């Protein structure tokens, strides 16, 4: 009887602390499905920043506990899976490899500009939301930057019955999946990457047959069309 009097307040305190939120969430593998697309006939290399191997974002919600989300290597896995499906040939190169030493049509350097999330206590809803702002830089095989494309991805998950940790994890995965969908849908339109293949073909032709192919250099800061 005496013991149960101690257990009940302890349980109530634990429940109170838990309801204040705060947790460490880990996303190991966003695991996007194989896209139903025809790959672009390009030999592409990708160079990832070090942060793609271990990305951790922490946020202290006012008056609540600290939330931490660890994306680990999931960005590297996401972009590798994605580019592998989008191009006929794809390789990941080390950060210290110099582009001119490599044979490719295009070199892609994705990075994370910003990562944000909101929890129900902030939004006054039952939702966890994650925003990720990626930046994709594309270089031709001469090392000339042809595009600098920022993309904003969004994922939302209801806390509901799945619990806060799982909902935040789900929102992060949905945001990464949203980024993948946006890249598939708009990358060529926004960056003109497919023209690099034509440039490659023309470069191999005799000089008299070569025409100047206008490569996109300013599509760069175009805001993605989110209505599509």
């Amino acid at each position, binding site marked *: 009887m005496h013991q149960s009097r101690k257990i009940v307040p302890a349980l109530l305190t634990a429940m109170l602390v838990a309801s204040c939120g705060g947790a460490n969430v880990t996303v190991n593998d966003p695991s*996007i499905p*194989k896209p*139903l*697309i025809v790959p672009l006939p390009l030999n592409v290399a990708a160079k990832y920043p070090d942060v793609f191997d271990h990305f951790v974002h922490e946020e202290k919600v006012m008056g609540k506990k600290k939330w931490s989300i660890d994306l680990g290597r999931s960005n590297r896995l996401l972009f590798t899976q994605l580019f592998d499906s989008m191009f006929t040939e794809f390789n990941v190169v080390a950060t210290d490899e110099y582009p001119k030493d490599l044979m490719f049509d295009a070199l892609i350097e994705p990075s994370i500009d910003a990562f944000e999330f909101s929890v129900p206590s902030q939004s006054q809803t039952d939702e966890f939301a994650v925003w990720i702002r990626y930046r994709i830089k594309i270089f031709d095989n001469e090392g000339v930057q042809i595009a600098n494309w920022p993309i904003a991805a969004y994922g939302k998950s209801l806390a*509901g*019955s799945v619990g806060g940790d799982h909902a935040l994890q789900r929102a992060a995965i*949905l945001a990464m999946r*949203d980024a993948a969908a946006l890249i598939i*849908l708009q990358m060529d339109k926004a960056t003109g990457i497919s023209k690099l293949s034509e440039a490659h073909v023309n470069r191999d032709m005799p000089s008299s047959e070569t025409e100047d192919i206008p490569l996109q250099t300013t599509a760069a800061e175009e805001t993605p069309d989110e209505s599509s």
Partner: protein
Amino acid sequence: MKAANNQTTRRLLMLALSGALMSGCVTSRIENIRENTTGITEGEGIVIMAKSYHLGNETEAKFISCVGNSVGRGSKGLHVIPNTEFVDALFPWFEPRTAPAEAKGLPTLMSRPGVAQKIKDKGVRYVVWLDGETEKVAGGGSMSCAAGPGGGGCFGFAWWQNDSNYEASVWDLDGLENAGTVSADVSGTSYLPAIVVPIPLLARTQNKACNALADQLRLFIISDEQV
């Protein structure tokens, strides 16, 4: 023998009475608007999806699974393909950002490489897009609870009104057109009187909307009614 029968009848009456008391009042309105003829054959199925949250939709995941389960239940149940399986198989064309917002986007979608074949392989004839949510629209009353070493209890009265308003748009992937919409508007008031022990009298509007919408949706799809 007669006394035993009377006792059983009394117990059943009490059970029915408490069942009626334990649920709040609910009013519902179910409607459908048909734009094209429907029908479904052996081997064809449907997918139930939430409209994109990029378009501001807030439909609860549990409502979508409830409608899916209800439509597929029973001898006249339809074959419901799990939406995650369908969305993954057609990635990235049914993502919140990329899914067509209107049925007139279907021809473009179907012309994308591999999409029509994948939909055929999955046996999906109709995509049902759910939109709407359950909201608390009013509430009032007050209740206070206290607990001490000798026990605890509550005293007071609280009430709240929920409105569950959902709409299902049915897209025919065979005819590449909007077949029509089915809507359910259910509102109900829940009460919570408490004299020592709180007794919840809940109006389960979302549950009622789910079952009503699912029944109507099943009839709408299998019907050969002309426009």
